[in-house]
């Protein structure tokens, strides 16, 4: 089953602005492994090889925080929780 189809099953209340931020996209150029792209179950982080930057699909974020930990050597991801009541809302959990 494709990730997009799975995420489509989940219930989100999407805020108008992102709760995730790449602090400095130039820092990502020095990062060889792009760790943030490997740890996210929702595929929020994608490396765009042409634009040479991370594309953030924050609307799909499950708010688990693994991206921040994965990026700890650069400390280049700023995560705060979405506004109260926004973001993912599990039905089963």
């Amino acid at each position, binding site marked *: 089953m494709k990730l997009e189809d799975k995420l489509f099953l989940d219930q989100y209340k999407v805020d108008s602005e992102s709760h995730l931020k790449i602090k400095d996209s130039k820092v990502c150029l020095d990062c060889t492994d792009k760790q943030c792209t490997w740890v996210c179950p929702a595929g929020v982080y994608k490396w765009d090889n042409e634009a040479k930057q991370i594309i953030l699909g924050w609307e799909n974020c499950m708010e688990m*925080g693994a991206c921040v930990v994965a990026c700890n050597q650069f400390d280049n991801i700023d995560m705060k929780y979405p506004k109260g009541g926004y973001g993912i*809302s599990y039905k089963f959990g």
Partner: protein
Amino acid sequence: MCLPYFTLYTFRGRHIGLPLQKQSSWRTYLSDKFDVIIVGAGPAGSAAALTLARAGLSVVVFERGEFPGAKNMFGGVLYTTILNRLVPNFWEDAPLERQIVKRRFGLLSKQSEAAFEFRSEDYNTKPPYNHSFSALRARFDPWLAKKAEEAGAFIIPETVVDDLLWRDGKVVGVKARREGGEMEADVVIAADGVNSFLAKKAGLRKDFKWNVLAVAAKEVIGLPREVIEDRFGLEGDEGVAMEFFGDAVAGMVGGGFIYTNKDTLSVGVACSIDAFIGKKIVPNDLLERFKSHPSIRRLIRKGETLEYSGHMIPEGGHKQVPQVLTDGLLLVGDAAHLVNASLYHEGTNLAMASGLFAAEAIIEAKKRGDFSKEGLGSYHKKLTDSFVFKDLSKFREVEAWAHANPKFFTEYPDLCLDLIKDYFTISEKPKALIQAEVYKKFRKKLSPLRALVELNKVRKALF
């Protein structure tokens, strides 16, 4: 569930206002100062709120989700010894799925599986059975929060707490992300989960390393209950907890799981962050790989995926537990890294225990009017004297062992399964010859002495 749209908020049994969305000024309905502010209405936060409210303390709980449990997910098994102290005979109305009467640990290679399974009718006589139940958190957490609310705690959903209020080096309240969101209390309990931004702001925890956290991805898969019962050998509300290692998760440090719910299965993988990065595989691909393994595929056949979820598990054990309290602030549950990552996989029970102990410590501190680190010190003592720290201490080497011995997740399972397969392969070769060949193959890979040393490592770490 305390959905704000439908709840008339009560405080100590009194109606105090309209649903939050309809209030022009939400603060006019709340007093300026509470005895205790709790951040997070998960099992730890609600356990604390319930205990404090029953003792007559004024308690407010901030929850960032649409309702308590909206942001929460776990593998699937809840141990209930502490729950039974909080809500005696909880099984009469708690939204639980199935009592776990069977446990199964499977070791997978690409084509084969060896498993250890245990079931007992002694786990199946009467509630609370073996104090193990499968559960779904978006159903269980609201129920426990409701109990706290009924006891008089005031639960405010849809509210993020971003920071602590300090005065003279002591925590004296929180800053909620709302207009006029500053609120004071004698004590703040940070029950804000594994990321605990509050613990970090208070300087109680450092940044995490990759090896102390696991990333979990899970699907809830719907199947008719008769199919689940027939397929897993269950009757009525009996359930099974199954965990899988080795090729189940591509030889990574971690495992896969299937837990049976009433008419769904919780199917997922949980592996260390460094394993995903090292292997360059994303959680969803690992989960799909797990689901397509011949041993797993048959168990979830014809199921319909209903929800996909992810969460981080603090698996660093005893060595990662931060300082759990400071002046005016206590950490509970995942915020205090309280997860037993051994084969018991115990988290929510430790969360509820820590919530209960934190509340008891605050009740004692209130009698003395001393909310300093020393005044609240009995919280640490209660953790130390109970199974919480005793278990974490016993299993303190699990994480280090797993990371220092990757062979236990790759080479050894494969060898083990290969030998068993050879042993049972039927041919016209005399059995004595087959056995001799199996032993020879084993000797080639591992000397008997080495095998004993390795087994002893497992024993020390996991048993």
